């Protein structure tokens, strides 16, 4: 089997990581509780990080873990918790007709195509220019740093600008409602803080129609402090 011909431990780790990654992915998609989805995402990230190490991209693995798992997913969790939206999402119902069926068909078709087309040509070696020799250990990072700050300098600068814009965007988006509406409707927030998953579709739209207007006017507060 092709797989086994490679060094034994590598294939084992690959298989494990593959299982972890795929499992996590499915977990994200299938779990009806967003928190559980987030945790599965973390699992996938760890799996991928290990694969990075496998592929001798150690720095990336570390970066992956710290930034991706550490920052982004935590941000997710933070928002989930903040908004208190950790309700069960009823997976059964699907308002858009045929959405699921077509989605699965399209997904599988996509997978089939990629693998089908790619199969023959994965190993083709066209002539290629190497920016820097990728090798494990310290030299890898040096090469990576050299590449980033020489060949990819422009993208590097652009990404910094991108980050600033993202931050400003986020602030602007959130602050739009502004301090104007500061009165707090105690009962609404009480009603929102549900302690466990409730069955039933109406649960999704937590507030019936007439209540909706009130909620819209309320400046959102969860617990005591107020999100500006």
């Amino acid at each position: 089997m092709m797989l086994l011909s490679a060094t034994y431990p590598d294939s084992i780790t690959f298989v494990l990581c593959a299982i972890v990654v795929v499992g996590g992915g499915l977990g994200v998609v299938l779990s009806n509780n967003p928190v559980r989805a987030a945790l599965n995402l973390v699992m996938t990230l760890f799996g991928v990080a290990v694969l990075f190490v496998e592929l001798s991209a150690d720095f990336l693995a570390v970066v992956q873990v710290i930034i991706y798992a550490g920052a982004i997913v935590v941000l997710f969790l933070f928002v989930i918790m903040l908004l208190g939206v950790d309700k069960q999402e009823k997976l059964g119902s699907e308002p858009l007709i045929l959405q699921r069926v077509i989605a699965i068909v399209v997904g599988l078709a996509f997978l089939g195509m990629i693998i089908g087309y790619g199969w023959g040509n994965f190993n083709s070696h066209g002539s290629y220019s190497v920016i820097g020799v990728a090798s494990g250990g310290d030299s890898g990072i040096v090469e990576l740093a050299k590449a980033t700050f020489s060949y990819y300098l422009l993208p590097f600068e652009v990404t910094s600008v991108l980050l600033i814009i993202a931050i400003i965007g986020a602030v602007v988006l959130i602050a739009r409602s502004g301090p104007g509406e500061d009165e707090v409707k105690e009962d609404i927030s009480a009603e929102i803080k549900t302690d466990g998953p409730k069955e039933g579709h109406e649960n999704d739209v937590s507030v019936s129609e007439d209540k909706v207007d009130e909620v819209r006017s309320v400046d959102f507060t969860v617990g005591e402090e107020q999100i500006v």
Partner: protein
Amino acid sequence: MSVDLSYYLILAAVLFTIGLIGLLVRRNVLVMLMCVELMLNASNLTFVAFASKLKDVGGQADVFFVLVVAAAEVVVGLAIIVSIYRKRLGATADDLSSLKG
């Protein structure tokens, strides 16, 4: 090089498809965002797989940038989600149809 390149790519493809289907199927906006993260990871995996196969650090540098973009995207995504939720708790993707033609 550990396992052959094609397996990595297959794995990445599978992961990408899972993310894609998740994006299309799930109605909770947060989970959709996570699925996008999955798809991004799949592409990172491909980058790194090729980087190691071709002994070219360029692949890894790209991952680096993908990460940045992912971060920015999540920030903005979550900001949008927060502003959505501010309007109505538990809104799902389908309620956001103001763009109706």
